[in-house]
């Protein structure tokens, strides 16, 4: 009996004394290889084809050789710590950076295989195709109706008042705002709540029938309910538009996007489908950022 005892009764202690592996600490810069992005940055059906894109503010580089495809009708989220270049990169897509004198953009940026930075390109037409929604809602100090009608009118999209009315109604419907404002289209837009103003800005962007909508932290000034409404809208809009969204909220990226791109110090570190990024990211830096280890 005793012999049986000793054989069976091996130590059943908690394995707590065992050494625990510690990931070797390396400075973030050494983990990045210039121009190299892990995951799947390319697409078979790109709306935007971006190759070796570099952006400089004066002499200092803000974006370092980024190559990326943005697929048709996808929602892609750009995430990364402050100053990583995600907004700068977003603003290249409809040449919003042109307004900054010291900003230079290099590389190949194609929208439907046409060069965005071609000298002959009409920037107004480009921005009608690639609309933008900003962080702070910025309606014009005019009526709700005028805010939406302004774009179609200057682009000559409607010849008659009734056509314009249709565009305004459709845009407000798509932005999920129609039922809230249909009885007060003449009221001033600045009197609306923040969430309504932001959806009005989305309606204004939709009104000129864009193909792409760029969103630069569209919900950071909104409360959770208004945020949920905008996110719901993004999901609906992805059927007809390509959407690029910059966000500081990782949960928002996880909720709304199909693919997620992680930026770090001007590099595009990883692009993967959103499920992969939030369950098993490939790159160490992506992992550290989304798990709240820095950022």
């Amino acid at each position: 009996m005793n012999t049986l005892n000793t054989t069976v009764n091996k130590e059943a202690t908690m394995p707590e004394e065992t050494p625990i592996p510690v990931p070797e600490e390396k400075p973030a810069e050494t983990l990045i290889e210039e121009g190299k992005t892990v995951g799947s940055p390319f697409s078979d059906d790109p709306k935007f084809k971006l190759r070796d894109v570099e952006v400089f503010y004066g002499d200092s580089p803000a974006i370092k050789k980024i190559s990326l495809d943005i697929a048709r009708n996808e929602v892609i989220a750009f995430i990364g710590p402050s100053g990583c270049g995600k907004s700068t990169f977003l603003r290249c897509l409809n040449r919003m950076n042109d307004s900054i004198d010291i900003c230079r953009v290099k590389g190949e940026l194609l929208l439907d295989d046409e060069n965005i930075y071609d000298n002959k390109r009409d920037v107004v037409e480009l921005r009608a195709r690639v609309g933008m929604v900003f962080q702070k809602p910025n309606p014009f100090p005019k009526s709700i109706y005028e805010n939406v009608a302004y774009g179609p009118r200057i682009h000559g999209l409607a010849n008659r008042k009734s056509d314009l009315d249709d565009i305004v109604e459709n845009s407000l419907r798509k932005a999920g705002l129609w039922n809230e404002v249909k009885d007060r289209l003449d009221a001033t837009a600045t009197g609306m709540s923040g969430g309504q103003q932001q959806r009005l800005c989305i309606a204004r962007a939709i009104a000129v029938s864009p193909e792409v909508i760029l969103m630069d932290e569209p919900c950071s000034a909104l409360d959770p309910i208004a945020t949920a409404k905008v996110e719901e809208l993004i999901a609906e809009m992805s059927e007809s538009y390509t959407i690029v969204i910059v966000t500081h909220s990782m949960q928002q990226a996880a909720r709304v996007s199909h693919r997620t791109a992680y930026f770090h110090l001007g590099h595009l570190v990883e692009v993967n489908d959103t499920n992969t990024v939030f369950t098993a990211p490939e790159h160490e830096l992506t992992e550290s950022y989304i798990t709240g280890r820095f950022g």
Partner: protein
Amino acid sequence: MPNKKDDMYGDHISHQFNEDLSNLKNDFLKMGGLVEQQTIDAVNALIDGDGHAADEIRARDKLVDKMEMELDEEATRLIARRQPAARDLRLVIAVIKMVSDLERVGDEAKKIAKFALTLSQEGQAPRGYVEVRHISTHVTTMLHDALDAFSRLDSVQALKIMREDKRVDEEYQAATRTLLTFMMEDSRNISRCMAVMWVLRALERVGDHACNLAENVIYMVEGEDVRHTPVEEAAKIVGP
């Protein structure tokens, strides 16, 4: 910044988050240590014919059940309050799954203790105990190694445990054949041998649960689900 004592779950900006994850890990290991001890004690009680010890094991199973519920609540709270992602998320999800494996190992130990009690009251010569001892050593080692692999995030060791499972199955079949021989030799052995057979079956299940733990450790470390995957496929994921 992490020092050598911190593990890979310990370097969040939020200290409270670090603590929550480390508590979850430690509580899981505590529960693992308890069910491992329960299994070993149950087999000892059987072999020693110690009915008193068997009673104690059955009473202690309540503690296992309590720990299961506490760990589940801890994990739920962590998800609700911290929204863990990537490796943190995989840790929480893996713990939720592994906790039910541990609870079932506890149930198997309880089952063995029940047979220990019955057999101790009959008080006959032990038949098939050599096999019981052999398999129990094997599966409790697997269980111990699985907890160790969890603690050290060692997917290579976890893979070894997956490979062991096949050997346990073979040993179980061999033991079954031996017991069948005893039964055929003398039909008075049958009821007793059937009881031992149930114990062997319980131990074989412990091996299966250890194997499930190992699969979850690989998921935690590598981010790939290797359940229902041939061991050789899993080996490719774990790498050399």
